């Protein structure tokens, strides 16, 4: 596994090193109106690996994902994708990086004026002009089949359940065949059966596509099921990072309390 020392520290050093992690954040800081949300966190994720980011509400888990995909700009620190620093890139240069990322929003964020099929086709229409209409249609059907929603193509997002909306969001996130998948609370607000189905789906996708993934979640059971490693955040810092067994054996008070309450 690549380590944080493989991450370049300055913009000038951002030539892609051969063993660079797919995603690496180093000394990342972010504040909103003077309130520190991330206080210099450092994390890495390799190809085919899933990192679950856990923590209490308001500890900056979702902000971390928004920083990685460029929806927020960090106050300081580096965000490297395949060894290149992407922090603070212009919107058009960032778009090129985003084509390699898939993002599932906490509330799915489906376009409410488009059907389920049109939602999934949306990134393809804008970035895969090489595909004919019928090829795009086939790709949408294939993606919907992959998330078990082949019959919902003509439905509106408001006509399907929260769990189905998450699946559509996942299909849309996978449309451009990303090498990085960012999932923000994929099981939040879902019943245990739907949560299990989403977990199974994420596991299946990981096996088949070998993406580097970061999953932000409160759901310890889900994190344990789908992630190779877990990172627990508190007050903008990583308290502990490792396998679930490492968290279980930790003597840190906050880690014990978090596991006990989860």
């Amino acid at each position, binding site marked *: 596994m690549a380590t944080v020392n493989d991450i370049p520290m300055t913009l000038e050093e951002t030539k892609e090193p051969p063993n660079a992690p797919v995603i690496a954040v180093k000394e990342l800081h972010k504040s909103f109106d003077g309130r520190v949300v991330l206080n210099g966190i450092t994390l890495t994720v390799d190809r085919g690996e899933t990192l679950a980011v856990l923590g209490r509400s308001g500890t900056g888990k979702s902000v971390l994902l*928004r920083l990685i995909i460029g*929806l927020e700009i960090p106050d300081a620190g580096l965000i490297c994708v395949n060894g290149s620093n992407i922090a603070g890139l212009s*919107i058009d240069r960032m778009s090129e990086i985003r084509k390699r990322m898939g*993002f599932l*929003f906490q509330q799915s*964020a489906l*376009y409410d004026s488009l059907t389920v099929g049109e939602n999934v086709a949306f*990134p393809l229409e*804008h970035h895969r002009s090489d595909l004919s209409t019928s090829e795009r249609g086939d790709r949408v059907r294939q993606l919907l089949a992959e998330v078990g929603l082949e019959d919902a193509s003509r439905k509106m997002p408001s006509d399907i359940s929260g769990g189905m909306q998450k699946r559509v969001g996942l299909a849309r996130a996978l449309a451009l065949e990303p090498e990085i998948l960012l999932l923000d609370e994929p099981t939040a607000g879902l019943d245990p059966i739907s949560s299990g189905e989403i977990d199974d789906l994420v596991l299946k996708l990981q096996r088949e596509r070998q993406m580097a993934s970061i999953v932000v979640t409160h759901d310890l059971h889900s994190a344990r099921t789908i992630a190779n490693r877990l990172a627990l955040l508190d007050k903008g810092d990583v308290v502990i990072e490792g396998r679930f067994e490492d968290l279980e054996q930790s003597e840190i008070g906050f880690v014990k309390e978090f596991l006990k309450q989860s």
Partner: protein
Amino acid sequence: MNGHAITPIAATQPAPPGHETVNLPVSARSLASNLLGFFDWFGNLGLFTWKVLRAAVTPPYEWRELIRQLDEVGSQSLPLVALAGGAVGAVLSMEIRSSMVRFGATSVPPSAVIYSVIQEMGPTITGLVVSGRVGAGIGAQLASMKVTEQIDAIEASAINPYRLLASTRILACILMLPLLTVAADACGVLMGWVAQTLVQPISFQQFIGSGFSGSTLHDFLPPTFKTAVFGLIIGLIACFQGMRTRGGAEGVGRSATSSVVLASLFVILADVVLVKFILVVFQ
């Protein structure tokens, strides 16, 4: 508690040297805050305009979305604009007749109605009607997309939302306002004739012939094309207010309202400047 008020410790101790605070009166603080907010709004509007402009002139171009917005702003607003233009033409005809009869005139010159409609009332009414319908629509739609993270989802899909959402809507407003103004003018002139001919019959050909005699394109083109500026104002303000929305359903409501109010206000203010500009340059 024994009824004594609790005094904060900080309030009882004098500030250390060099840390004295200046206590402004409440009205002065409020004025300063409003002034700051005013400049902040204009600064952000400037940045937003720059981002939209840069996105609009660089490929890829969002032709399909532009056509959809041309239909939304143009075709969908046409009935309302035509009705408003017709009503204004009829009212102007009646009012002008009433005023002229009071001063002893026996008939109303058609040019009075036609000039009033085409030079001022048609463009202004079109600007205000579109501010209401399209400004509120764009403001509310983009605000709703913002608070439900749909705009973030567009950006996360590697699509520039300034290009897809803002530039297409603003361009549609700029292109459609002059065309809608022509429709409002036509309905205003037609209804002006109807209102006049009901009182004092006159053929439509005679009304038009007399009304336009001696006029040039300079009399009619600048007032019509000035509405492209109204379109820019309406589109820009509605997109800006919508895309900076915060705060759920209440925020959406606030953005829709502020889009209409600010767009209408700036259309009226811009009209003052444009009328003076047209008078200086074209006459």
